[in-house]
């Protein structure tokens, strides 16, 4: 049990982690829509090109209950365990912490001894999670230096806010309790991450459970009732320091990607849709004179479309919104990947100069109107680039196509099935779909991808080089 040397997948800095060996397999959250009578699963995908089962689902761990709605998940421990103020270098990156976004259940899944055959070793039942954390609908999981942090969309009493963040004990996986000591007027929750070296936690806003569980509520969207603020917290004092409102029409401020290098205190946030012009946008945060600033650095316009080609919710607009639902930043803080789940594109931007991004690559697949196929599957393909994951060396990008069961059905009403593809990245920018990599999951939908040994949205680093 006790390790004598640190877990070999822990790296002091992002730069060192880029030298890590390529991932040999991925864990993929897979879900059956509610009412299907089938449980969700964690699928294991073989990513080792030398293997006979490369590019196949080699195992499917079915969960014991129905209707969990797997979404995001994460590792129990990562490179943050080397952070000097609370080093736990002999923890193992071994367990997947897998929340059910709908059920508020959390599964602890052991990837040893056989990483291809993970097993559930503990289930935190909804009563325990909600009772001890004060929150419901757990979402993002981050391995912190001192605990496992999890954001949650709802409060304990269900539909009313506030959503927030709670902690799990690193070793026992018991729910420690809510994280915030002073939350100010923060109500909505979604994603969070941090600048560990600055003692800053950043959180974003999606919506309250009634605004998403049964699908996007158009009236609420047009009334700008979804989240449009970003919050900057004191990580030590667990206190809200500053909130920035980026404008009410910028609806759904979701994924947060701080720079991996701890000497940099900027990062990127994606906004799904503007109610003024249906565009999506990417924003960068930075600190000047002690104040956090948000600046819109990328605007992605909607694409005009025939009414007949659009799902009912979009018909009145005669256009497809890009719907930026996920973004991901490579470990060298150089390339930002942006999923346009509406228009069916993945964009790659060079963000070396964070306020002046340059579009360096694009791939097209799926999309509400285009439904564009893949060299391995002529299509039409439903869904579009959604959850993106980047290999540690930055040369491979994987993505899946499902957003959230009820939202999938609104935007892709023909009935989406799950698929996962891979993109090969050129060293200095530019990318293309790997023509041989297409995994068809059938009717089961797939969401977050976690790579063996860590990836670009798991580990945090306390050292810069």
């Amino acid at each position, binding site marked *: 049990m*006790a*390790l*004598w*040397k*640190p877990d*070999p997948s*822990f*790296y*002091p*800095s992002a730069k*060192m982690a880029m030298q890590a060996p390529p991932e040999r397999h991925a864990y993929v959250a897979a879900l059956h829509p509610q009412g299907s009578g089938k449980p969700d699963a964690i699928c294991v995908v073989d990513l080792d090109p030398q293997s006979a089962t490369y590019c196949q689902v080699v195992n499917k761990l079915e969960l014991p209950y129905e209707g969990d709605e797997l979404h995001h998940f994460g590792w129990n421990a990562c490179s943050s365990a*080397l*952070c*000097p*103020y*609370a*080093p*736990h*270098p*002999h*923890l193992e990156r071994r367990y997947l912490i897998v929340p059910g976004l709908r059920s508020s259940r959390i599964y602890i899944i052991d990837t040893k001894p056989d990483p291809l055959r993970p097993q559930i070793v503990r289930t935190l039942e909804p009563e325990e999670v909600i009772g001890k954390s004060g929150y419901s609908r757990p979402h993002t999981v981050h391995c912190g*230096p*001192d605990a496992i942090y999890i954001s949650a969309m709802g409060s304990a009493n269900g539909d009313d806010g506030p959503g927030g963040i709670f902690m799990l004990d690193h*070793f026992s996986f018991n729910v420690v309790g809510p994280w915030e000591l002073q939350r100010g007027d923060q109500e909505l929750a979604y994603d969070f991450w941090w600048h*560990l*070296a*600055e*003692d800053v936690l950043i959180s974003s806003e999606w919506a309250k459970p009634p605004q998403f569980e049964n699908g996007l509520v158009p009236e609420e969207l047009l009334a700008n009732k979804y989240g449009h603020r970003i919050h900057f917290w004191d*990580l*030590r004092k667990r206190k809200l320091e500053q909130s920035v409102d980026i404008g009410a029409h910028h609806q759904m401020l979701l994924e947060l990607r701080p720079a991996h290098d*701890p*000497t940099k205190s900027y990062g990127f946030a994606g906004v799904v849709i503007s109610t003024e012009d249906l565009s999506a946008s990417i924003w960068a945060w930075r600190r000047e004179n002690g104040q956090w600033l948000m600046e819109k650095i990328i605007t992605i316009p909607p694409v005009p479309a025939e009414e007949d080609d659009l799902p009912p919710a979009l018909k009145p607009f005669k256009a497809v919104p890009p719907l930026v639902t996920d973004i991901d930043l490579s470990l060298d803080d150089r390339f930002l990947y942006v999923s346009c789940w509406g228009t069916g594109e993945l964009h790659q931007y060079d963000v070396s100069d964070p306020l002046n991004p340059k579009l360096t690559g694009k791939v097209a697949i799926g999309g509400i109107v285009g439904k564009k196929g893949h060299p391995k599957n002529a299509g039409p393909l439903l869904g579009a680039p959604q959850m993106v994951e980047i290999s540690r060396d930055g040369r491979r990008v994987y993505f899946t196509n499902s957003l959230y069961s009820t939202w999938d059905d609104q935007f892709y009403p023909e009935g989406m099935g799950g698929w996962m593809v891979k993109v090969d990245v050129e060293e200095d920018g530019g990318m293309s779909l790997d023509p041989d990599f297409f995994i068809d999951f059938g009717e089961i939908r797939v969401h977050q991808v976690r790579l063996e040994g860590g990836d670009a949205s798991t580990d945090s680093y*306390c*050292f*810069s*080089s």
Partner: protein
Amino acid sequence: MATLPPILTASLPEPIGSWLAIVALGAFHGLNPGMGWLFALSRGLQQQSGRVVWISLLPIAAGHAAAIGAVVLLVFAGLQFFSLQRIQWLTAALLLAFGAYKLRNYYRHPRWVGMKVGYGALFLWSFLMASAHGAGLMLVPALLGVAAVHDAGHAHHAGMAMSSGGSLAVAVVVHTAAMLLVMGIVAWIVYRKVGLAVLRKQWINFDLIWAIALLVAGAIALAMALAH
């Protein structure tokens, strides 16, 4: 105590042995990345200044010294009221119990969050880490060895108390100096020579070794009590 195995009797801390133990434990505490040099190094890297590395070591050493000093005060006060042997028994019991606890929970550390700390907080952090891990307690058998020289065979009187107090104060300084020296050397080697990659391969499980060291110190304290 004729029944004690010779190896244990031979290792009983004579004054010189006690002083050596105080220095060796200083080096051991200094070597442990969790006791401070890594924190100092990360501050220097974050602020891109070698000077910050070296300066940060000072409040860390001071915090460690304060934690040891607090234990020394307890030992000194104890010696005024109780016999050396009784203190030895108590030390042995505490060390063995705490060592057994740490052996099962070696991976647990006091909760601390915060990289962006000033020198005051760094002092506090070091004090907290040293105290919670029993750095001072680990030192008590050696401290008793030092104090006992003045105590042996005599009734308590003021002069003896003063000189054993003086020795104990010197022990804190010697221990901390050894710790600071080793921290400085290790930080220098990592910072200037080998780089942080060394952490991945060479960071052995100090937490587990620490728990074992507590048990060994407890065994020595027990042997001292039995030999008395």
